[in-house]
């Protein structure tokens, strides 16, 4: 699987995700600079986490207009799968590839902790190895992860099965207490209408290596490899 990881000034999780992709696919992803005009031919494009452009103006707003994003948008529209994690999710929303926006956490605090995500939609290339309702642990590390969209958009996402992950407790219950940032309907991850663009707030790449602890996130990357290589 040929994967490309896009690096913006201020991106800082590119190695984490590249390491996991290499571990599951056997091939080191190529790193692509934000100032480039073209993403090399890829089976998967990843927008990793970090603080692109120092989160100036709004998280992801500047990155969404950087030169490389024109080609990322074109390739996504042509069907290339795109995974945006954390800041990558914010960039996908600002670029218009996903609806809604990620606002300040309702607590106004930066959150850094393990969270449990319930898989709501296993029928995507990113979640094919999960069962519906299965739990995936991932690391929340964000100040702006509070997903917001108007009620019509939220209803459309739900109706089209595009809510892929929700924050849940250890037992899979979606409760206000298990929602770390105030996200509407406890949404942690959504996909586009074709289910080939996924935005996810917590970091599955940081729960993918036994050396670092939990490994539930690895299944997401294994799903991608299995779906795209098969």
């Amino acid at each position, binding site marked *: 699987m040929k994967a490309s990881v896009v690096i913006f000034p201020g991106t800082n999780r590119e190695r984490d995700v590249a390491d996991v992709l290499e571990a599951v696919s056997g091939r080191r992803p190529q790193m692509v600079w934000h100032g480039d005009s073209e993403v090399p031919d890829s089976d998967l494009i990843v927008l990793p986490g970090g603080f692109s452009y120092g989160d100036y103006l*709004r998280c992801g707003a500047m990155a969404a207009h950087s030169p490389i994003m024109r080609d990322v948008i074109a390739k996504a529209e042509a069907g290339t799968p795109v995974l945006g994690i954390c800041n990558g999710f914010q960039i996908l929303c600002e670029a218009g590839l996903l609806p809604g926006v990620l606002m300040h956490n309702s607590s106004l605090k930066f959150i850094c902790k393990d969270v449990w995500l319930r898989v709501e939609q296993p029928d995507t290339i990113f979640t094919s190895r999960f069962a519906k309702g299965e739990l995936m642990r991932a690391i929340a590390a964000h100040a702006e992860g509070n997903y917001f969209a108007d009620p019509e958009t939220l209803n459309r996402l739900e109706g089209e099965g595009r809510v892929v992950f929700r924050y849940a407790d250890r037992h899979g219950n979606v409760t206000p207490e298990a929602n770390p940032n105030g996200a509407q309907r406890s949404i942690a991850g959504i996909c586009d209408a074709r289910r080939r663009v996924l935005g996810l707030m917590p970091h599955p790449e940081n729960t993918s290596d036994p050396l670092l602890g939990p490994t539930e996130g690895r299944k997401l990357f294994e799903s991608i490899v299995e779906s795209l290589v098969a």
Partner: protein
Amino acid sequence: MKARIVITLKNGVLDPQGKAVQNAVGALGIEGVQSVRQGKFIEVDLAAGSEAAARATVERMCRELLANTVIENYVYEIES
């Protein structure tokens, strides 16, 4: 020409920063503040030939970058 742009959260969009400011104002003993909404103020110098041209430029800046119209409104004034 100068453009002064004000970007605010739409009504109904939760503004935790505004809420925190309101609470802090209350903690100072300042009474009668019923709500606080926080936004952004952006000042731009423009080399525009006419006010209409300046407005067109500012409108496009606001729509495409400065404001996220999912959650924000913008208003601006042009000073020649």
